[in-house]
């Protein structure tokens, strides 16, 4: 048997049959395929739905985490926090950490620890005092924390201070973390030590007043309540740009600063006479008024 190429191709073409699938078989196969396609499509739809839902959930979770992170990381204290928990900051165990009063500190008010020291800041008990605090008008934002070297009785020490801004007056000042907790009481902010047992500093603004008028009022008050009332004098307040007056009586002391038409009043009260350096730390506040 011999072939040339053309013959072979012809023979190959003749191998082509007209064989077809059995029509009945074909129909049943078609049905089976349609069912398979249907199942496949619904499985695929379910898979896509699952992927879509899990992606959405993941994105939402990331959003919530990010929001929480940003929220907890923001530098200023939201007004609402002060409303719900009046007492917020705590300088920690500063009694065992007698630092000086020249530090400026910026830190997140929610942080618990500050490396290199034992101070901690924990929210105090809620005190929804209805003392008429108008948060929209009066509030104090903690802007952060920084370190400063201060001098206590001639010894230089590094301490931490919080930066605050009093609104709506825009008055900025620093408070040693020793007075790390503070509370808003009406239009007054009161900074105090962790257990509120040694000393506290109150700040508020008397609007449309002069330091002389207020000094006279304080003087009268002090003379009424105390035996050892000091003279009204100009404070030693470093780089504080405002003119001021101060007076002390027993365990109390006040500072008045004329800021435009208003007077910033700083009252210091020492509960425990043993807490000598508490008074020294007050110096940070009066030097830092801006």
């Amino acid at each position, binding site marked *: *048997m011999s072939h040339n*190429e053309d013959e072979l191709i012809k023979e190959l073409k003749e191998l082509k049959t007209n064989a077809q699938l059995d029509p009945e078989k074909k129909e049943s*196969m078609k049905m089976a*395929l349609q069912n398979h396609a249907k199942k496949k499509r619904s499985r695929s739809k379910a898979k896509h739905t699952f992927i879509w839902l899990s992606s959405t959930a993941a994105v939402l979770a990331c959003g919530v985490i990010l929001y929480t992170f940003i929220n907890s990381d923001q530098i200023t204290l939201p007004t609402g926090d002060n409303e719900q928990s009046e007492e917020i900051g705590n300088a920690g165990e500063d009694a065992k950490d007698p630092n000086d009063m020249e530090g400026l500190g910026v830190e997140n008010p929610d942080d618990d620890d500050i490396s290199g020291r034992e101070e901690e800041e924990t929210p105090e008990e809620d005190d929804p005092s209805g003392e008429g605090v108008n948060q929209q008008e009066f509030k104090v934002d903690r802007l952060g924390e920084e370190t400063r070297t201060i001098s206590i009785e001639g010894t230089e020490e590094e301490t931490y201070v919080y930066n605050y801004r009093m609104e709506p007056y825009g008055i900025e000042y620093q408070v040693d973390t020793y007075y790390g907790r503070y509370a808003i009481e009406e239009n007054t902010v009161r900074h105090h030590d962790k257990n509120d047992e040694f000393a506290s500093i109150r700040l508020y603004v008397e609007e449309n007043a002069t330091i002389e008028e207020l000094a006279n009022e304080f003087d009268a008050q002090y003379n009424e309540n105390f035996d050892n009332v000091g003279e009204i004098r100009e404070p030693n307040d470093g780089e504080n740009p405002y003119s001021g007056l101060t007076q002390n009586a027993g365990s109390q002391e006040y500072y008045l600063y004329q800021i435009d038409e208003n007077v910033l009043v700083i009252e210091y009260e020492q509960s425990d006479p043993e807490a000598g350096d508490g008074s020294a730390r007050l110096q940070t506040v009066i030097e830092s008024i801006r």
Partner: protein
Amino acid sequence: MDEELITDWFDAYADDIYRFLVYYTSTSDVEDLVQEVFIKAIDRYDSFKGDSSPKTWLFSIARNLAIDEARKQKRQDWRKLIKTYEHKIDISPEDKHLLTEKKLELHKAITKLKQDYRDVVILRGIEELSVTETANILKWSDSKVRVTFHRALKALKLQVKEVYYES
């Protein structure tokens, strides 16, 4: 892949796929394989990019399945295969017998060819697909199809002789 599309494809190409599988496996018992080809097409539809026609894509699926099937099933059912030609033969019983025998010898010779040659002989020679269609199915270049087909025919001639003398 929706039901409508697979139905359209099945209507259009099921018989082509059936015949291709008959040539490739040398048996007419390939209905299950035909169905499997379309099931695979449904499952792999996402990978069908539309660069080639559905027909050549289905043929390439069928070819892969047929190769797997051929590995599993070494024996061809020649009697059933002959039956696929009977209905179109309208000649004397003697001629019919001779013709059938001749076709059978050619089939046997094709099955003895190496894989590449068998592919190209079935697709180009029997199915009469174009060079481009064959190239798409086998994922070859057009020139490779031409050259391999030419070589396959030469090899087939030798195989036909051997089969002839064997029988």
